[in-house]
């Protein structure tokens, strides 16, 4: 109510140039700091942030280079796929042939400096878990065709070249020629296995183990083991 009256008075002043305005000195000034943050709320949040940082601020690894996702392969593509494969292997205490994930679920790229638990949570905001699928070589080849068709995706344990028609050539699995009759273990996220990413070959696989390890734990553990994250590509997917 008071706002409205003050505005109308101010308005009269604008229009007529009368001195009416000067008599209402106790005008409420706008308390807003916009576009700056509300200082009062920022203080309240800082209190919460301080206690959150004891957990979320813990260092996971040091990032040495700027690491990004990219096609056909990139340092961050390779890191996220290797992490799935190696964490699955160490959980199962068994060799795992392939790791694969879509890149759409990841929300950050990495910049040089300290990587914290909080960063990993921002990097992978979803609460999915690790899944290991057992599939035939034939099915694995279908999966690799889907990756090639996308122009590349985060994948580990596989090397191939994408030809002009978008098909995979010279496909090697763990440095050996892919055997259509062999059985391969493929590590991925529950999201991808449930139909979330764009790899239909991962959907409806009957021989599937759901591990009690969240994807975030996968990355936290893997990055901790790596200690330093550096830019490196190994030509696993070539054009």
């Amino acid at each position, binding site marked *: *109510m008071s*706002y*409205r009256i003050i505005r*109308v008075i101010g*308005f009269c002043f*604008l*229009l*007529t140039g009368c001195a009416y305005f000067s008599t209402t000195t106790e005008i*409420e000034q*706008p*308390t*807003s*700091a*916009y*576009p*700056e*943050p*509300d200082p009062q*709320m*920022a203080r*309240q*949040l800082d209190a*919460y942030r301080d206690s*959150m940082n004891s*957990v*979320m601020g813990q260092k996971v690894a040091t990032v040495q280079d700027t690491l990004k*996702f990219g096609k056909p392969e990139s340092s961050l593509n390779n890191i996220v796929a290797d992490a799935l494969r190696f964490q699955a292997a160490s959980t199962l205490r068994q060799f795992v042939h392939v790791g694969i994930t879509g890149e759409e679920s*990841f*929300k*950050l*790229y*990495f*910049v040089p400096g300290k990587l914290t*638990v*909080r*960063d990993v*949570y*921002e990097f992978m*905001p979803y*609460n999915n878990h690790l899944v290991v699928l057992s599939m035939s070589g034939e099915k694995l080849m279908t999966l690799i065709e889907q990756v090639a068709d996308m122009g590349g995706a985060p994948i580990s344990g596989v090397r191939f070249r994408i030809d002009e028609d978008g098909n995979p050539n010279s496909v090697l699995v763990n440095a050996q020629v892919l055997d259509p009759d062999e059985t391969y273990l493929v590590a991925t996220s529950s999201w991808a296995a449930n139909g979330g990413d764009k790899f239909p070959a991962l959907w409806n696989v009957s021989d599937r183990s759901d591990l009690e390890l969240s994807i975030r734990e996968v990355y936290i553990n893997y990055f901790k083991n790596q200690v330093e994250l550096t830019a490196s590509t190994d030509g696993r997917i070539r054009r």
Partner: protein
Amino acid sequence: MISRKTFLKQSVYALAGSAVVPGIADKFTDLIENPSITILYTNDTHSRIDPYPKNAREFAGLGGIAKRSSLVKKIRFEEKNVLLLDAGDVFQGTPWFDQYGGKVDFEMMSEMGYDAMAIGNHEFDLGLEGFADAAKSAEFSFLCANYSTWNTPMHPFVEHELIKEIDGYKVGIFGLGIQLEGIVDPKLHGRVHYRDPVLSAKRSVENFRNFHACDYIICLSHLGYEYDGNQIDDVSLAQEVSGIDLIIGGHTHTFLDNHVAVENPDGSETLITQMGHSGIRLGRIDLHLNKKSPRPLVTSQYYTIGGNS
């Protein structure tokens, strides 16, 4: 990115200010006698308390609840009648949620003076007890007309409808939630059951119009904007139910730059709007009331939070 659009009210002021002619007084009376209601809204904020980090792959630097708060304060200073609403999915998305389970979000939303929010599917992410724990920090209404919450920990916190009376003008607000099957783990939603949103919407509209003489009806919907299949969405809701003036939507994270008008069975119109997600945008709809006309003149715009505005 467009951050702000001019809206009618500002231009009325500008016009009045530049023309020192008789009759101006009539314009003032007009503005005072025909007030406006400003509806501010968000959806799917997903615990984006802090702005997106600088190294985010998308939306770097955008959002932030303290910036939203200062914008809301600014608008509250400029406008007398403000409603602040959310269409659900405040839960899940950042370390804030992992650490505080939505409590901080609800506290800050209360601080900002939110009037009501819909229940999103992610509001079940910590189970019904988890929701109830966080909801204790909320000083606003949780609206859902189509979930049966009877005998569950959610029940004390959820209402079907809310009526806001502003200068004698009655705004009825109700909420709709998305189907739970296939979207929410049955272990998490427990004995909360989903009911047909079309039926619930018709019931709410009837209640508002016939028993409470509401002048304007808003639906806070977490159904989603539009689907390919025959799943109920905001567009089909508007096509099937007459009498809803405005649907503030969510779930599909749709950035609608302008509201969309959909024709109802009775030939009237429902406006649909949605502001993407994560508090990147604050939506604004102004209802310019006019005693001579039953329907207010509607102008809409949005603000990009943390953008160069």
